[in-house]
């Protein structure tokens, strides 16, 4: 390793200090909160007459109540169903018909709640009545009118996502149509309507069949997560358990909304060709009417300590997949930046040491990725390895190779050049993200929600800079422990009991 290359690395570090990047970026940002607690971050980029919007609700599937998993995701779908003014031919009548659906459903539930004593014939009649009520309500609907308005006005990238920690809504518009976003976004959260709820419930079940039930990887990660977490709601899939989802009611969605969609629990970012003064005026006008509400209670369930290694095995005729996770603290922990760097050292680019060992040198893996935070970061979670074994190589071989590579990694301190490299890469990554409106909008809200300040997007680089080779070794040794490990893998169902199933010796099944 030539000296000149090292010098170049250190020169770079001095040229692009995070503080300088932040100082430049700060000039473009305006921030304000409304009296109801709703927070706005406005970042100006006038390169083109376009603007991106991002609404980040600091509640996700981890907040789903027991028995109603999937409700955060279900509400997200309902947020595209319109408002009292959009998507209906006659709101007063439609509202009555929606109430009639709930009344019919209550009657059906009352009978079904008798359990084995329920009268099957009566259930059938009540089910018919429920279907009739649903059909009647549909006659007032202008389907998909709300998203149509966005699309027709040139909106692009319109979508929403539900994760464990958060629910996010986003799209971009030509910048002369900013007011349209204020109107549409405020109305869907000011007056949520629950039209077409039960048809959409069918749609989200199809989504589950597609993402999980028809996907070996989806099934594997679902079983892996449910195995790793016993008490904490990270164990529940973000789409909910199918039998919960199939029975969700409008009142579940209303209750979730009332509890978690408090203005103080939401942050919105507007990035692009926007005048911050005008944004503030419009925010006050459109979002001011949202009533102030108390913040939702903190989630108290903590995952108890893990008392030994765990394993999940998923039958699948597909080629094998392997997931390995180690318990780690949440993203507010002082070691969070260390995990970040470890992830990059182990599997970043083409130089990651574990990647190189398994994929390039031993060639036992086709693919190896890490996630420093899985499934999400607000609560203690997992450091994850995802491995697709190469053709002709087994899960066992890969697990063994991974253990060896981690052993080597923990045995010696990371060299100065590698540590400098991953820090430089992290810094460059932040810079490269700054010219993308929708990406920036998402990052600003996520950092604000997670850390209380969007500046963490930049100051996290200072935290990374402080990480030493000692830190890397200490954290790796402390957390990559077999006793807090969860392994999950797929295996062909025809494989006779012995080898593949018993393959991970000494672990509980």
């Amino acid at each position, binding site marked *: 390793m030539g000296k000149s290359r090292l010098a170049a*690395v250190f020169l770079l570090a001095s040229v692009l200090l995070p503080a300088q990047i932040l100082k430049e970026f700060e000039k473009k940002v305006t921030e304000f909160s409304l009296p109801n607690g709703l927070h706005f971050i406005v970042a100006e980029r006038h*390169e083109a007459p376009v603007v991106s919007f991002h609404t980040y609700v600091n509640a996700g599937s981890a907040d789903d109540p027991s028995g109603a998993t999937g409700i955060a995701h279900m509400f997200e779908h309902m947020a595209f169903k319109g408002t009292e003014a959009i998507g209906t031919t006659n709101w007063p009548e439609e509202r009555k018909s929606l109430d009639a659906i709930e009344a019919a459903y209550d009657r059906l539930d009352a009978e079904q709640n008798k359990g084995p004593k329920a009268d099957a014939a009566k259930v059938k009649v009540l089910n018919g009545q429920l279907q009739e009520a649903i059909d009647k309500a549909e006659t007032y609907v202008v389907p998909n009118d709300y998203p149509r*308005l966005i699309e027709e006005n040139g909106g692009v990238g319109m979508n929403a996502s539900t994760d464990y920690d958060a629910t996010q809504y986003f799209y971009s518009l030509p*910048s002369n149509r900013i007011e349209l976003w204020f109107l549409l976004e405020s109305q869907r959260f000011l007056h949520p309507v629950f039209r077409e709820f039960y048809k959409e419930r069918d749609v989200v079940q199809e989504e589950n069949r597609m993402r999980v039930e028809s996907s070996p990887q989806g099934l594997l990660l679902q079983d892996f997560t449910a195995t790793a977490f016993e008490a904490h709601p990270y164990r529940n899939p973000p789409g909910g358990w199918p039998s919960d989802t199939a029975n969700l009611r409008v009142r579940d969605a209303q209750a979730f909304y009332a509890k978690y969609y408090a203005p103080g629990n939401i942050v919105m970012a507007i990035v692009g060709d926007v005048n911050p003064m005008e944004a503030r005026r419009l925010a006050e006008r459109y979002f001011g009417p949202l009533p102030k509400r108390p913040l939702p209670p903190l989630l108290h369930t903590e995952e108890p300590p893990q008392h030994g290694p765990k394993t999940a095995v998923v039958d699948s005729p597909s080629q094998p997949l392997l997931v390995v996770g180690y318990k780690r603290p949440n993203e507010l922990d002082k070691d969070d930046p260390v995990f970040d760097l470890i992830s990059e050292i182990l599997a970043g680019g083409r130089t990651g040491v574990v990647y190189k060992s398994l994929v390039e040198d031993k060639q036992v893996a086709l693919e190896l990725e890490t996630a420093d935070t899985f*499934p999400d970061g607000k609560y203690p979670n997992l450091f994850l390895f995802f491995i697709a074994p190469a053709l002709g190589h087994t899960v066992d071989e890969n697990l063994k190779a991974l253990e060896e590579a981690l052993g080597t990694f923990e045995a010696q301190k990371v060299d100065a050049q590698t540590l400098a490299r991953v820090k430089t890469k992290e810094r460059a990554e932040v*810079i490269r993200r700054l010219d993308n409106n929708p990406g920036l909008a998402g990052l600003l809200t*996520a950092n604000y929600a997670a850390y209380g300040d969007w500046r963490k997007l930049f100051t996290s680089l200072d935290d990374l800079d402080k990480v030493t080779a000692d830190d890397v070794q200490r954290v790796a040794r402390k957390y990559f422990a077999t006793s807090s490990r969860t392994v999950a893998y797929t295996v062909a169902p025809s494989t006779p009991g012995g080898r593949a199933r018993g393959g991970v010796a000494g672990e509980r099944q």
Partner: protein
Amino acid sequence: MRGRVWGLGVGGWFVVAVATCALWAQAPGGSRQQSASASLAIPSVKDLKFPPLKPVEIPAVETVTLPNGMKVFLLEDHELPVVNGSARIRTGNLFDPPDKVGLATITGMVMRTGGTRTKTGDQLDQELENIAASVESSIDESSGSVGFSALKENTDQVLAAFHDVLTEPEFRQNKIDLAKNELRSGISRRNDDAHGIAEREFTDAVYGKDTPYGWEMEYPTVNRITRDDMAAFYKRYFFPANVMLAVWGDFNAAGMKTKLANLFADWKVTEPAVPAFPPVRQKAAPGLYLAMKTDVAQTFVVMGQLGGELRDKDYPALEVMSDILGGGFRSRLFQRVRTRMGDAYDIDAGWGANYDHPGLFRITVSTKSASTVETLKAINEEVQKMRTSEVTDDELNTAKQTALNSLVFAFDTKSKTLGRVLNYEYFGYPKDFIQQYQKALARVTKADVLRVAKERLNPAAFTVVTVGNPMQFGQPLESLGPVKALDLTIPEAK
């Protein structure tokens, strides 16, 4: 750290599967009328008045041909201290020999991983990552690419590596072996994803499995590829007159021009002009196919026929037609199969148009096994309707507004502008193609939409590929017509 992106595709559950990408747009807007009374009542959407959109500044791309014949396109962008480049080479896996399918792909991989005359791939990896830079190469269906990216202060270093990868790749055997292992592993996994199977079998059937557009890499074709094959493939296509290089970012154009001229001054190899890509077989491939897969809860369907080219005079009308049929929330298929029937999460249709050969018109859906037949019936009815009656004024207007109003997003970054200039040049399109398209789109009528649906959609000859578990269909697929079984067996290496 928040916001790390990783590739497993887990986590987020979305409201729609694919972000609907409206084409392009420009909107005449009324002038803003400030309501003086500033009534706090929330207006209805139709009362909103939008100011005219600010004019889009389309930056000028500087073009120069170096003495060795290499065409260079430069665009300054000083927002971030970053320099990026992408060389496009006229080649593609359409030129693969039939017994060595995969040759172009593996050549594209090992150009970078196999290192250069003076440096191994591993040395390049280290040097580039030390400065958070990248050089990557690949060859896809109808072009090759070598790209780079670096922070501004590392411009010279990344350019040197880029130059070496482009002009003197070494194709070291250990990385060839690694790439072949990766390709073989990829082949072994190709039947693991039901949607992927449907896409592949549909494409292969419509283009023809015995044509370069429809054949697949197999173990034997990959095994036969040698280092000599790769070196020869590289030599045939990688010469200066066959390269278009786009560079954008934080630099001075005049300075960059000089830099590039010096850098590539001694690259002077010549080869005969590269021939045209093979034509697409213009033949319908009607059939209802079933690939049995029992470990799925849904049936994955891809159905359709050959599409067209972007230069078709009817392309704008075809876009409007397919958009009304299956593009986005407001489309007929979405409304019916998803919103009304609740039978799908993912459903869409798109008129496939490519620059230089017909793309694929395809309808994609996945639905629970038991609703397979009713979903296919509903889709067929909607396709028939497109061909038998005019769309409504409302539908036409929405489709056109959607496309026209979003046109600004085709110009919102400098790299998009540069990419477009490059595409038009590479495929021989007029420089103002997008503006022409915009005008033609605005003129599309209901009669046009009906005419192109009648002329171009041929549902009787659709290729319909289903992947799923027929034991769970309830209604047999045969109720829709004769079903041909697809054999997914992967041929063994010989």
